[in-house]
């Protein structure tokens, strides 16, 4: 174990993770409760040799991110609900042009301006389906300051590995949490394949990920958000080209679910009831499971570290093993609905949309009610 241990705010740990992962470009717009990431990188990124810019809005931020990525940078932005909604446009562009970039979303209570300083996890479905058309981003969900650091690094690596936008789906509670974090270097850094001889938008390779040269590499790149062939020429009326492109950009992620999906399973071996949780709620869920165990209830926890691609296999494994599944979350049941698609058994949703984190006792009570 290397790296110094510090007490940091979650948002600052995400900024440190970005620096550790080799981020060289940040564009952002101030928005509560994510602005500490913007501010920390404004201070530290130029000193590390990268470029920082505060853009005029979030439409511009994500656009600049993609422009910078094609100029060879590892790029990141951070935002929250209203900004994320604006970024849906640029997200689709990043997806169809297969542009690696990292978006940290510090979720707050919505819809609209909602409660800017209060916690929620209402953006889970939005990042997957909020931009028009079919695409498949990667989304990771940290529950601690350590994971803000670790998963930001992982998001950069996955974005580069699969040429895809990757989200760190955090929330106000984790973003503003202060706890110790080890700023280690125990990881590898994935670098882009910049081969200019092979087509940048199509490949027969089984992984479905073509090389991505940068502007200035001499590739005479043709990058477009319109449907294109493997060299980037617009093909806006070819059914086959559209089928092939949309199919590949989704398949290259879904086919690698085993590599991308990460879960944290605790006390599940003999469990009769499973709590499925993510983000800050995962902490309350673990506390609840431990309390239930003390009371003799065989409860277990499946914490989803990866949200997209959705951990279908891991959820399916619960079916038949546990009698009931309880899904506590700070929205109206976004992940509970997904869980229901993959199991036949009872899935009980514990929704809380009051701008406050879910207390362990609420989960304990719900589990007991479900088992009664």
């Amino acid at each position, binding site marked *: 174990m290397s790296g110094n241990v510090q007490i940091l705010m979650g948002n600052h740990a995400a900024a440190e993770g970005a620096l550790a992962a080799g981020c*060289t*470009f940040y*564009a952002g717009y101030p928005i509560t409760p994510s602005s500490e990431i913007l501010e920390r990188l404004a201070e530290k990124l130029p000193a590390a040799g990268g*470029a920082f*810019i505060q*853009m*005029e*809005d979030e*439409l*511009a*931020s994500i*656009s*600049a*991110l*993609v*422009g*910078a*990525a*094609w*100029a*060879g*940078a590892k*790029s990141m932005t951070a935002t929250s609900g209203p900004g994320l909604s604006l970024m849906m*446009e*640029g997200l689709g*562009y990043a997806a169809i042009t297969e542009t690696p970039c990292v978006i940290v979303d510090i979720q707050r209570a919505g819809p609209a301006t909602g409660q800017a300083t209060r916690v929620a996890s209402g953006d889970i479905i939005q990042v997957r389906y909020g931009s028009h058309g079919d695409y498949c981003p990667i989304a990771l969900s940290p529950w601690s300051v350590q994971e803000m650091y670790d998963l930001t690094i992982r998001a950069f690596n996955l974005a580069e590995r699969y040429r895809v936008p990757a989200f760190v789906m955090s929330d106000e509670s984790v973003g503003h949490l202060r706890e110790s974090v080890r700023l280690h270097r125990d990881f590898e850094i994935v670098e882009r394949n910049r081969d200019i001889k092979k087509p940048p938008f199509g490949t027969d390779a089984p992984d479905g990920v073509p090389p991505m040269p*940068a*502007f*200035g*590499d*001499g*590739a*005479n*790149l*043709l*990058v*477009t*958000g*319109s449907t294109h062939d493997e060299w*980037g*020429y*617009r093909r806006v009326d070819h059914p086959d080209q559209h089928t092939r492109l949309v199919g590949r950009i989704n398949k290259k992620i879904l086919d690698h679910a085993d590599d991308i999906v990460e879960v944290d399973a605790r006390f599940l071996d003999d469990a009769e009831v499973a709590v499925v949780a993510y983000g800050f709620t995962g902490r309350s869920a673990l506390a609840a499971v431990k309390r239930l165990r003390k009371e003799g209830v065989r409860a277990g926890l499946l914490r989803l570290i990866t949200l997209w691609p959705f951990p279908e296999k891991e959820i399916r494994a619960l079916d038949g093993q546990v009698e009931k599944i309880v899904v506590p979350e700070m929205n109206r049941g976004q992940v509970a609905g997904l869980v229901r698609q993959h199991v036949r058994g009872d899935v009980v949703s514990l929704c809380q949309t009051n701008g406050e984190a879910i207390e362990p006792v609420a989960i304990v009570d719900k589990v007991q009610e479900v088992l009664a």
Partner: protein
Amino acid sequence: MTRAMEHWLRTEHTAFCSGCGHGILLGCVIRAVDELEIDRKNLLFVSGIGCAAWIPSPNIQADTLHTLHGRAVAYATGAKLANPRLTVIVVSGDGDLSSIGGNHLIHAARRNIDLTVVCGNNQIYGMTGGQTAPSTPVGARTATDPQGNVYRPFDLCAVVRAAGAPYAARWPVTRPMSLIDSIKKAVKTDGFGFVEAISPCPTQFGRRNRLDDLTKLYDHLVGLCVTREEAKKMKPEQLWERFVIGEYHD
């Protein structure tokens, strides 16, 4: 297009309607970069959505980034900051740059990052079927103003100058030498350079304004051009139907 310029093109023909001014503008852009002897490897063209956005993409043989509607300048800002060695030229339309993309345009001018923006101003939304743009002259008929536009258009050179651009110029495509010269100056400007090309659109603008005949359309637009000197003697309202041509710089 003389054969000497063909090495700048990767397509054999453009998608523009016959008589469209954008083909002339394409010729001006590549002649400007050719005369400047810019290292092609480090030359990037960025465009948004619309007919003018197709001037560089896919026609020009260099790196091209064909982006979302209105966002070209924001993408260009990211690319330039990430790799300052790049010469970044945005080529896009009036609706793209000044309506949906207006905010990005004024902020790029304010920041004065070293970008060049070439605006192909056809005074209408060509690709979507001839709707009113923020640059449509007062009185001109469009698909959304069949009785004639009543709102005054942007003076885009004045807008970017007010926002801080050190160089701006406006010429009709009937003055290619002036356009080439201004594009070169804008590229050489250390900061934000802006060139607006008045570019006739026979298909959408001409057809709706009884200017079906190509010669008539070109004559009409040339007739609306006034020099900065002439403009000084005119009332502001008179300029809402005209194009003030010339250069603006410190």
